[in-house]
């Protein structure tokens, strides 16, 4: 629908999901608008690339692109994919102990979705000319990182709620603008991911809402989870703008659409009211509305801690990596068997045709 772009905030089913739908509509519109054909012979390829980006058109896999654009995207999409795959662990930790069969089913479906999102994103990364095997190797050798939030432990059931509400909430705020990323396969994967993640955030909020309106022990469990997850969630938006190394170029290429601090502020502003309805307290004594800025003032997360966790010294870094490596290693014989079977079948097929 034309103009949905601007009405997203108030659109029916608005909020973040509305923004995702608006991004999807914009993608279709841009595709329909005066399309740039292939570059003329002898045309300056960099100028051609810049033209496409300026026109808010999507760069597609076989287009020419600057090597740095390709590298930046591979790194970002891969790290995003790794985060989904490693992110299965902290929540997966509670599937076996989920307190009702309904919650068990929802959590299992959610963790399964994370695997699906990882695979959508690996598929998007592969369009840039890197293989899944290489990507997996980069993850398990530790040469590429994943979101540091997943290096914190899930100690109680309420942590599953806090991850859904805060961690998935922060992820969505980060990801919604990526639905408008200039690289087509990434933008399309993000649209799909964001639509599915919306269910994740709601299930987290619902868990916390039920706990905070339950027994005193349940409410205490919910508050404790928020106390532990609030600052790490704020840190998910990355270092403050002044210290962020990749931002300016990524913004120019329309890979990134907003700065870390802008997104962090947006997240804080969203959470305050939601926490009130939960009847739970965000652990920040200095959190207050600033009328001048029309936004909440808040305490920054501990960025030194963020750097320590990124470097490998978070509570669960070693455990998460070991788990991923073990799954990969223990699966080797199965993958070999499947490959051997496929080769035998292909051989039999050939013999049948020859006969």
């Amino acid at each position: 629908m034309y103009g949905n772009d601007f009405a997203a905030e108030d659109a029916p089913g608005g909020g973040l999901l509305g923004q995702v739908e608006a991004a999807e509509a914009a993608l279709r519109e841009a595709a329909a608008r005066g399309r740039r054909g292939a570059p003329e012979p002898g045309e300056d390829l960099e100028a051609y690339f810049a033209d496409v980006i300026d026109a808010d058109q999507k760069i597609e896999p076989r287009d020419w692109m600057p090597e740095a654009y390709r590298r930046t995207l591979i790194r970002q999409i891969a790290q995003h994919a790794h985060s989904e795959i490693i992110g299965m662990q902290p929540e997966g930790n509670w599937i076996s102990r989920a307190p009702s069969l309904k919650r068990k089913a929802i959590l299992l479906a959610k963790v399964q979705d994370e695997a699906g999102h990882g695979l959508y994103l690996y598929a998007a990364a592969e369009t840039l000319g890197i293989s899944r095997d290489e990507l997996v190797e980069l993850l398990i050798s530790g040469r590429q990182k994943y979101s540091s939030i997943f290096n914190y432990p899930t100690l109680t059931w309420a942590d599953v709620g806090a991850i859904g509400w805060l961690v998935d909430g922060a992820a969505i705020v980060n990801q919604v603008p990526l639905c408008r990323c200039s690289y087509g396969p990434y933008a399309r994967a993000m649209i799909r991911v964001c639509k599915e993640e919306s269910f994740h955030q709601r299930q987290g909020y619902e868990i916390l809402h039920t706990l905070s309106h339950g027994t005193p022990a349940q409410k205490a469990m919910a508050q404790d989870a928020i106390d532990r997850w609030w600052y790490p969630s704020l840190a998910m938006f990355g270092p403050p703008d002044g210290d962020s190394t990749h931002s300016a170029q990524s913004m120019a290429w329309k890979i990134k659409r907003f700065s870390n601090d802008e997104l962090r502020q947006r997240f804080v502003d969203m959470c305050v009211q939601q926490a009130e309805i939960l009847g739970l307290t965000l652990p920040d004594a200095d959190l207050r509305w600033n009328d001048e800025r029309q936004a909440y003032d808040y305490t920054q997360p501990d960025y030194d801690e963020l750097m320590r966790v990124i470097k490998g010294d978070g509570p669960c870094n070693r455990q998460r990596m070991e788990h991923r490596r073990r799954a990969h290693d223990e699966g080797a014989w199965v993958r070999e068997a499947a490959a051997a079977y496929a080769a035998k079948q292909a051989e039999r097929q050939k013999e049948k045709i020859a006969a």
Partner: protein
Amino acid sequence: MSQESTPLWEVFVRARRGLSHTHVGSLHAPDAELALRNARDLYTRRQEGVSIWVVPAGAITASSPDEKDAFFDPAADKVYRHPTFYEVPDGVAHL
């Protein structure tokens, strides 16, 4: 294990009767049969499809209409996958 022993497949899904198959992404599988099963599990978890094609280099494999029941029905009752399933208390914005 050898590098790249698991081939890449492109996946096409027909979302509803009357529409053509649309490319939805790719996945890895050792052979066509498993590629089709993986595609069903990965790309139609929310009833997004009535038919799937998986395409390795040059070849096309499609799910047969006869298999449709067992193939797609199981997702029908998993309403918790859709965001509208959740009760959001009145007045909560941006969720």
